[in-house]
C-alpha cells in the first residue's frame, strides 16, 4: 500500500516537473543580427542565443561552396553561394533549443553540419534533468525501503 502511494507521488511529481508552466522572464524583444559563416562542415558561430520574441536576422556567408541553413522547429531555410550573403529573418516565438543544419548537399559530412539555436532557456533540458533526478531519488528510496 505504501509502495503504491510512493509510486503515485513520484508519478505526480514527474508530471509536474515535465509539464508545469515555468515563469517566462520578462525580457523586451529586440532585434538581433548575426553574421554567420558557413564552411565545410560547420557554422561560425555555431551556437546562437536569443530571447523569446526577438526578431532574429541571420546573414549567411558561405565561405567555400553553396551551403544552406535550415532551422529545426521553425521549418525555415535559406541558401547562400560564396560571394552572395543571404539573409534570413524570423521572430523567435518558440522557446527552447533548436538545431539548425545545412540543407544543400555540400560534401560528405553534410548531414552532420549542425549548429544550435537557443531561444530563452532550454527548458526541456532542465525538465529532463529534473525527471532524471526524481527517477534516481525514487529508485534509491525504494532500495532503502527494501533493506
Amino acid at each position, binding site marked *: 500500500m505504501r509502495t503504491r502511494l510512493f509510486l503515485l507521488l513520484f508519478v505526480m511529481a514527474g508530471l509536474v516537473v515535465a509539464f508545469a508552466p515555468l515563469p517566462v522572464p520578462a525580457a523586451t524583444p529586440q532585434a538581433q543580427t548575426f553574421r554567420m559563416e558557413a564552411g565545410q*562542415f560547420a557554422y561560425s558561430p*555555431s551556437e546562437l542565443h536569443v530571447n523569446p520574441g526577438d526578431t532574429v536576422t541571420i546573414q549567411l556567408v558561405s565561405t567555400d561552396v553553396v551551403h544552406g541553413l535550415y532551422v529545426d522547429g521553425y521549418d525555415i531555410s535559406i541558401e547562400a553561394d560564396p560571394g552572395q550573403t543571404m539573409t534570413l529573418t524570423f521572430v523567435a516565438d518558440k522557446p527552447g533549443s533548436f*538545431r539548425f543544419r545545412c540543407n544543400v548537399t555540400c560534401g560528405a559530412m553534410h*548531414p*552532420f553540419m549542425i549548429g544550435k539555436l537557443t531561444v530563452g532557456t*532550454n527548458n526541456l533540458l532542465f525538465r*529532463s534533468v529534473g525527471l*532524471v533526478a526524481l527517477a534516481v531519488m525514487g*529508485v534509491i528510496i525504494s*532500495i532503502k525501503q527494501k533493506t
Partner: protein
Amino acid sequence: MAKIELTRGPFIKNALKSRYPQLAVFVIMLVGYIFAILAGLTGTPVGSRNFSIVFVWIAWWAILILVAVPFFGRGWCAVCPIPLPGEWLQRGSVLAPHDKRPKWLNLRVPKIFRNIWLQNISFLLLALFSSVLLTSPNITGIVLAVMLFGAIGLSTIFERRAFCRYLCPVGGFIGLYSQTAPIELRIKDKQVCATCEGKPCYNGSQAGYGCPWDVFPGGLTRNTYCGLCMECIRTCPHDNIAINLRPFSADLAKPSTRLDEAFKAFIMLGSAMIYAGVLLGPWGVLKDAAYNVGTNAWFIYAVIFLAIIFVILPGLFTLGILQTKSILPLKRRFASLATALIPIGLMFWVAFSLSFVLTNASYILAALSDPMGLGWNLFGTANAAWQPMLTSVLAPAQTLALVGGLIWSARTAQKAANEVKVSSIPVIVYCLIATLVMLWLLL
C-alpha cells in the same frame, strides 16, 4: 508476469518450421544486400542519394535499433543475408539437408576466439571510421562486400556460422542487447532434453542442421547467442522448443559475469555518447577530426575515443564500485554490475538514432525511386524534398527514452547488485551521470 508461448498455436509454429517463408525472406534480403553493394560501388558518390547509404544507415539502422533489437532481440539475425551464401555452400543445400554433404573443413573455431572480443574489435574498427563509412557509398559497399565474402570464406573453413557468432560487428551488440527483448527461444521441459539421445538440436538430423550458432538449445538461459534461425525447432524430435513472449529484460535478472560482454557494454555506451557529441553537436573541429582519417587530428580523435571506452568509462565505473565492500573478486563484481549498463546503452542508441533518422528519413523516398543517382524515377518520388520529420516530437521522445533507460538500468543494477551482494548505489549514480551527459549532448 508469466511467459506466453507464441509457438503454441499451429499457425506460428508451422510458419516458423517451414523453410519456405524463411527462404522467401532470405532471397529478398540477399537481393537487397547485393544491390546495396553494387549501388555503393557504382552509383553516385553522394550518400544522401545512394541506396547503400540510405537503406543501410538510415532505413535498416532505424528498424534495427528502434524495432528489431528492443522488441525482437536478435530478430535481425533471423533474416540477415550475410551468412546465407556461405551456409548454402557449407550445407550443400538451400532447404532441408541432403544425404550427401559436401566435405568442407568444418573446423571448430579455436578456443581463444570463442568469445566476443573479436566482435568488440570489429565494431570498434567500424566505429573509428564511422564518419567516412556512414557518408561514403563506396566504403559502405566495400564493407558490406567484405562481410559477405568474409562470411563465405569462414564457412568453408570453420563449422557452423563462424562469422555470425564470432566476428560480426553487428552481432556483438545485438547479442548483448537482446537480453532486454520481450521474446526468447527456450526449451519447454529440461527433463525431456536430459533423456534425449543424440541431441539433434546441436548435432543435426535429417530434418535440419545442428545449431549454426554453436549453442546447445537445451542449455539456453539467455538470448545473447541464439540467432533465432529456427533450425532447432525443426530438428527437435520431442517438440520441446518454444518461442515465448516474456517481460522485458528478463535475462538481466541473472547478470552475466563475462568480461568481454562487460566491455561490449562500455563500448556501446561510450560510442553513443561520442557520436552524440561529434556528429550531432555544433563543434566542427570534432567532425573534421573524425572524418579526416589519417591526419594527426584523426589520430588524436581515435586515441581519445579508445581512451574513453577502455580507460575512462570502465575506470570511473571501477572506482565507483571499489567503494563497496565485498568478498567477491573485483572482476566478478565489475562484469556483473556492468550488465546494468545494458538498458541505458540501448536507450542511448535509440535516442541518438532517433535524431538522424527522423531528420533524414525523407531520403528513403528518393532512394527508392533513384537508388543509384542515375536519374531514374521508379516510383515517382525521386524529387521528394528533404524534410525533417516529427521534429517537435523528437526532443521529448529522446527525453522519455533516456529517463526510461535510466530507471530500467537502476532496476537492473539493483538485481545485479543483489547477486554480488553489494550496494547498487554507485552504479546508479554512474548511470545518472552518464544520462545527464547524454541529455546535455542531445537536447
